[in-house]
């Protein structure tokens, strides 16, 4: 081992300094080439690329599954005969494992009843369906030949009936539902979180701040399934008793529950932005005779506006992609209405509820991945805006340029 090292160093020395001289010459002070150093640096750099690679891979692989929708096919049929005639599967692929097909049949018996759709208890009926459908190739071939043509045309409709005889994939009810829940959640979360952040950074003493900050950030550690459970079992019943609306699970309950998830996000970033406002601002304001609250309200808050805006964007992103709370507390009915007390179905909940019962390679499967791509692109852009535009603006504003 040792001799090897010396060899490597000797060869390296040959290249860097042919004649070793004594004293602090330029040649002597030059960094020696060391294999372990070189190796460590390269490996660390390569691993650091992983995060970039993951982002790229997520985009590629989520998008890859949506491709069947975009493939043009000569046959133009909207009615999905394959789902009506389950026998065609077994006749075609006798050599494949019978278990997978048996399970597909159970799902098809569900798929023939569109009325059940939208009721949360019907989305997954048995444990077997969770395990099923991972043998995708034969289904995919069939799907490519017959299933995918109508999907395009139905995107712009008001009906989301993915498992009826004549499947329609209208995105509008899902998009309207998602935005309804998001708006309700942000309307509840933003004022509470921003005011709480203002109190923490402007009025609270140092000791009090050290208690409040971790306490509120503790809310961020609540798993979303716990908040969803609380909304489903406690909040839904309570608010129905107080407000007396008809459907127990609705956009308001979902929004209120998601506000609980968004509050710590908005709070933390707003608090950071408020604390980042230079002390000289506060001191100048106080020196000019302003009160503590006037300084907080008219100096600190306006100076931190871009940061607060970034906090809101990230809060929106959090609510927009929230799945478990949406699945458990929004009622999951794909309706378009302006009433906040109607049930809604959000984009992410649609993926969560329907992916488990969908046939691999089916149009429905691809459409769910398309929804996933949309969600991904939307949150990516929100984050990019929050990152580049607003942070740059905040820095410029504070530096007075």
């Amino acid at each position, binding site marked *: 081992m040792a001799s090897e090292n010396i060899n490597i160093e000797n060869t390296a020395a040959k290249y860097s300094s042919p004649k070793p001289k004594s004293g602090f010459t330029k040649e002597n002070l030059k960094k020696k080439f060391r294999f*372990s150093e070189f190796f460590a*640096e390269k490996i*660390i750099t390569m*691993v*650091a*690329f992983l*995060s*970039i690679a*993951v*982002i790229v*891979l*997520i985009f590629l*692989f*989520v998008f890859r*599954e949506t491709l069947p929708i975009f493939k043009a096919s000569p046959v133009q049929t909207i009615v999905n005969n394959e789902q009506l005639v389950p026998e065609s599967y077994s006749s075609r692929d006798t050599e494949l*494992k019978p278990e997978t097909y048996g399970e597909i049949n159970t799902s098809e018996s569900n798929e023939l009843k569109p009325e059940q759709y939208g009721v*949360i*208890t019907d989305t*997954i009926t048995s*444990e077997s369906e*969770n*395990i099923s459908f*991972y043998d*995708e190739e034969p289904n995919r071939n069939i799907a490519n030949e017959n299933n995918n043509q109508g999907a395009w045309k139905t995107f712009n409709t008001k009906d989301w009936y993915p498992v009826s005889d004549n499947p329609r994939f209208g995105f509008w009810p899902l998009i309207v539902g998602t935005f309804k829940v998001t708006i309700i959640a942000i309307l509840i979360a933003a004022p509470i*979180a921003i005011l*709480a952040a*203002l*109190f923490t950074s*402007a*009025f609270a003493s140092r000791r009090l701040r050290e208690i*409040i900050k971790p306490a*509120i950030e*503790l*809310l961020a*550690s*609540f*798993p979303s*399934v*716990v*908040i969803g*459970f609380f909304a489903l*079992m*406690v909040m839904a019943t309570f608010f129905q008793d107080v407000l007396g609306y008809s459907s127990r699970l609705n956009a308001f309950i979902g929004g209120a529950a998601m506000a609980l998830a968004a509050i710590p996000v908005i*709070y933390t970033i707003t608090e950071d932005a408020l604390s980042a406002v230079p002390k000289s601002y506060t001191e100048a304001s106080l020196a000019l005779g302003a009160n*503590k609250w*006037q300084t907080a309200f008219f100096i600190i808050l306006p100076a931190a506006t871009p940061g607060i805006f970034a906090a809101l964007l*990230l809060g929106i*992103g959090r609510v927009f*992609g929230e*799945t*478990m709370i949406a*699945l458990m507390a929004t009622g999951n009915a794909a309706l378009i209405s302006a009433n906040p007390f109607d049930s809604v179905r959000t984009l992410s909940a649609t993926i969560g509820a329907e*992916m*488990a019962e969908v046939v691999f390679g089916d149009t429905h499967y691809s459409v769910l*991945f398309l929804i*996933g791509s949309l*969600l*991904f692109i939307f*949150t990516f852009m929100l*984050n990019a805006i929050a990152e580049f535009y607003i942070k740059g603006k905040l820095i410029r504003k504070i530096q007075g340029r």
Partner: protein
Amino acid sequence: MRNKKDIKGAFIIGITASSVILIISIILLIAGIIIYGSRESFSWEFLTSFPTDGMTKGGILPAIIGTAIMVIIMSVAAVPFGTITAIYLTEYASEKSILAKIIRFAVRTLAVVPSIIFGLFGLGFFIKFVGQGMDNVFLGGELKWAQPNILWASLTMSLLTLPVVIVSVEEALRNVPKDLRQASLALGATKWQTIRKIVLPSSVSGILTGTILAISRGAGEVAPILFTGAAYYLATLPESVSDQFMNLGYHIYIMSTQSSNVEQTLPIQFATTLVLLMLTFLLNLTAIILRSRLRKKII
């Protein structure tokens, strides 16, 4: 005039203080109601027995063990990669390098990608691409890896928790004083030796904090494992990484929305929620204490 201002000020301080009180009381309310709801069903037997009678009675042992196994595999995957990325960002990359900026942006993006997207990615990449590939190459098309299992679920979860690890470790590495590094370099140690012998040992508690936070996040998330490995009910514990597993969060979701007798199993649901909440709470508390100790030690 003076008086009016004081009233206004008191009003503003009052309204901001009351929103703080509101948030903290909501936290206490959620915790209190969940503890109250599980007062009868929560016991030692509940933690250490299998579900019985079609999941209407019995305990949640398989869900606890399933979650634990998933979290362990997840940490094994996420912590080394997260730590190395953090080392790159703090030790090797210069402040102005574009590459480091892109990596940072990727990490922050990864932190805000909705968890359901990770689930889709796990399905599309691990199960359908890697798993299918492994089956085709090693097993000649036999179905083994191209289906949901605990390995794919854990790896999916490790991607989700990667930014958590990176951010905490990076903070810990930045807190290591420059003097230590310079002293080591001045004594003739190389950069890699300095990192290995000086920087990493003095940021162990930061790495530990990152691991704990990642575990807490991973234990609570359900969306990524919905279709990458979680099972509704299993009579046995997972025996290998190619088995499915039961998970605490998924158990809550299934019991409260998909089960046929939600009312009857309500105490069990509350108790399961309490277990999950206590788990994440204790983990976070440990992380907070560790972190504040770390800050004190450095300053």
